[in-house]
């Protein structure tokens, strides 16, 4: 408690000080306070909150002086707001580090975040609004011996709420820009960057019983994963690829099978002024890589495999998001941005922007091992899989298009349509695939230089009748009106109505005030239970009904 007080007063002091210089260095920071006053509402499944008030607080302090920097992050969850794991309950210094860097090397001791390539074998990151933080605690070294070469190496353990995971994680990665390394290639229009990384996890032995009675599984204490990547750019063209493999890693995610894992990610793009095209493909096979073999859930992931679909931000379009299947999936995505020129028939006076996006995610082909009838049996090699054969189960499909247009000096309109197929298997649920059509109109009207009105109308039509187990099911209508007085103040009123289903209204009123980097937002209303997706990661948020106060600031 005393510790807490000291920390709090330190935080308060700094806040009063603002960005300061001290001894030639400077102190900066940021904080975020989220407080929730929730009422029970059985109609939407909001649980009773006996504490009446819940709050999450983050305060970051960063001191830099030349090449030296140090930082601490205070966190408190007293008690955690709805949707955060109860293991977060508590308060204290959650993150601390010291770092020194010059042109050639950088060393960080304490907590650090880093990633190798796209993160297929290693990515340590945080997303505080999702309650995700797998910060490493250990040492990270980066070395730049010559221009164009970066060698990184690290060792540490991963954060697990207020504790650390059991596994020890070690890694090394190198990235080489050929343009900087090869003479005469420096000024070339073709840019080539190559990289390779290796990560290994050590975890003590433990008893996991084999299905054959009386035997315990012979667990590998060290699990390794390696990846190779390249990034080619030639004028308007670009090609990126990364391939990763993982050694035998029987764990709770893959039902303790001994099959090696692998992942491939390829992205090609062409773009010129007014036109951008991106094509992506990926294949994931048994790539759940965690620092504790018995861990399930969202914490302790050593690697990061993003969903291959567009991240929607309109509420009803984001109702059924794609969820990465680390045990196996194959996906493709195509994305086009096209600006139609001004003063043309389609472009009108101000030009029009057109965006098209298509993604499809399928299962991978899995066949039982010789002599077995089932797939993925514990203690075996699991299954065989033909690399190029697409599985026959559809996980996710999304076709969406957006036309946005400035109508006049004062008004803008964006129309979006999406067709989304969602297989509940992605959430480990059974049931038929949901096929949804979603339409959104987003209109902005600038009354004068200070007042801006914005309105959204959204409609979701599903093929699935409403059923109680999934409060998202059925058809939805949503309306939102937002008034902005400069960028300082806003008021928004919205309602989501499950008109063909539970008949529930999810209304919300929010006001916000922003002064430079300080933002206060107060919202009152109902939050639908469902997945909340920020930055490509999804987390289940329970329903809540009440008041939410949020304050963020940085200095």
């Amino acid at each position, binding site marked *: 408690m005393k510790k807490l007080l000291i920390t709090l007063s330190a935080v308060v002091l700094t806040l009063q000080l603002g960005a300061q210089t*001290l001894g030639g260095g400077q102190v900066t920071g*940021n904080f975020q306070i989220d407080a929730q006053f929730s009422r029970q509402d059985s109609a939407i499944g909001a649980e009773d909150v006996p504490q009446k008030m819940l709050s999450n607080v983050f305060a970051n302090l960063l001191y830099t002086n030349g090449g030296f920097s140090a930082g601490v992050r205070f966190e408190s969850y007293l008690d955690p707001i709805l949707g955060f794991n109860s293991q977060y309950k508590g308060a204290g210094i959650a993150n601390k580090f010291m770092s020194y860097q010059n042109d050639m090397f950088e060393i960080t001791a304490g907590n650090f975040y880093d990633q190798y390539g796209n993160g297929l074998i290693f990515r340590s990151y945080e997303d505080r609004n999702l309650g995700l933080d797998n910060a490493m605690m250990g040492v990270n070294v980066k070395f730049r011996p010559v221009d164009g070469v970066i060698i990184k190496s690290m060792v540490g353990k991963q954060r697990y709420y207020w504790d650390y995971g059991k596994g020890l994680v070690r890694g090394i990665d190198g990235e080489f820009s050929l343009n900087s390394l090869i003479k005469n290639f420096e000024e070339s229009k073709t840019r080539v*960057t190559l990289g390779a990384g290796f990560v290994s996890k050590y975890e003590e032995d433990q008893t996991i019983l084999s299905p054959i009675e009386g035997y315990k599984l012979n667990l590998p204490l060290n699990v390794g994963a390696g990846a190779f990547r390249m990034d080619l750019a030639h004028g308007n063209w670009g090609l990126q690829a990364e391939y990763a493999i993982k050694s035998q890693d029987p764990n709770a995610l893959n039902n303790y099978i001994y099959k090696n894992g692998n992942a491939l990610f390829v992205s090609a793009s062409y773009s010129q002024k007014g036109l951008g095209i991106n094509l992506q493909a990926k294949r994931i096979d048994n790539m759940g890589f965690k620092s504790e073999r018995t861990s399930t859930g969202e914490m302790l992931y050593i690697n990061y495999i993003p969903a291959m679909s567009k991240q929607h931000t309109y509420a009803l379009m984001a109702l059924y998001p794609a969820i990465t299947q680390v045990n196996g999936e194959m996906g493709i995505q195509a994305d086009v941005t096209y*600006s139609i020129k001004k003063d043309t028939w389609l472009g009108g006076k101000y030009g029009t922007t057109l965006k098209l996006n298509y993604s499809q995610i399928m299962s991978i082909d899995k066949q039982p091992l010789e002599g077995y009838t089932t797939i993925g049996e514990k203690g075996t090699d699991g299954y065989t899989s033909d690399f190029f054969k697409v599985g026959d189960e559809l996980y996710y499909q999304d076709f969406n298009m957006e036309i946005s247009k400035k109508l006049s000096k004062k008004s803008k309109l964006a129309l979006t349509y999406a067709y989304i197929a969602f297989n509940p298997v992605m959430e480990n649920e059974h049931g038929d695939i949901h096929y949804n059509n979603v339409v959104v109109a987003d209109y902005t009207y600038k009354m004068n230089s200070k007042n801006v009105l914005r309105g959204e109308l959204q409609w979701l039509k599903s093929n699935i009748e409403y059923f109680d187990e999934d409060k998202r099911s059925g058809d939805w209508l949503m309306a939102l009106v937002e008034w902005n007085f400069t960028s300082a103040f806003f008021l928004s009123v919205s309602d989501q109505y499950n008109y063909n289903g539970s008949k529930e209204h999810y209304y919300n009123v929010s006001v916000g005030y922003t002064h430079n980097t300080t933002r206060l937002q107060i919202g009152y209303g109902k939050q639908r239970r469902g997945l909340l997706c920020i930055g490509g990661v999804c987390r289940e948020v329970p329903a809540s009904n009440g008041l939410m106060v949020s304050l963020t600031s940085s200095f």
Partner: protein
Amino acid sequence: MKKLLVSAFALFLSIGMFAQETKSFPTLPENVSVKTLDGKTVQTSTFNNDGKPYILSFWATWCKPCLRELNTIKEVYEDWQEETGVKIIAVSIDDARGASRVKPLVNGSGWEYEVYIDQNQDLKRAMNVVNVPHTFIINGKGEVVWQHTSFVEGSEEELIELVRKVMNGEDISESK
């Protein structure tokens, strides 16, 4: 150990109070690595606009207000550059899910900004960015003289007005 660290920090801070100078601005972090759209790693120390101020804006492909901000400024960017010589550096915080869509989106939208990708969010953390959009004005000396989070139509006029003031050597740190 924890206690010691905390106390050390409290001490640091109180020293800071006494050492307080009349007016000082934090400077842009120098040694943070970001990537160009061609995959080249560069240090933030290379960010500059030949002694003139520039605007540093954090955004993401999935952030609607960010896209509105950058699209709105696109329409006036040529005029801004002609009048003030200001430059916009747009830093995407997209992770692997969106990073490969950044270049096609930037070109397809016809943005003429200097764009970088901060995939590991090192710069975002170093500059204490909590939410996007978050926009900074950096003066010719590399000092952060103003910052703001959120965007609505019309904010771009306030932004360029502030840039004009910075060019005239006015102090804008108290401006909203």
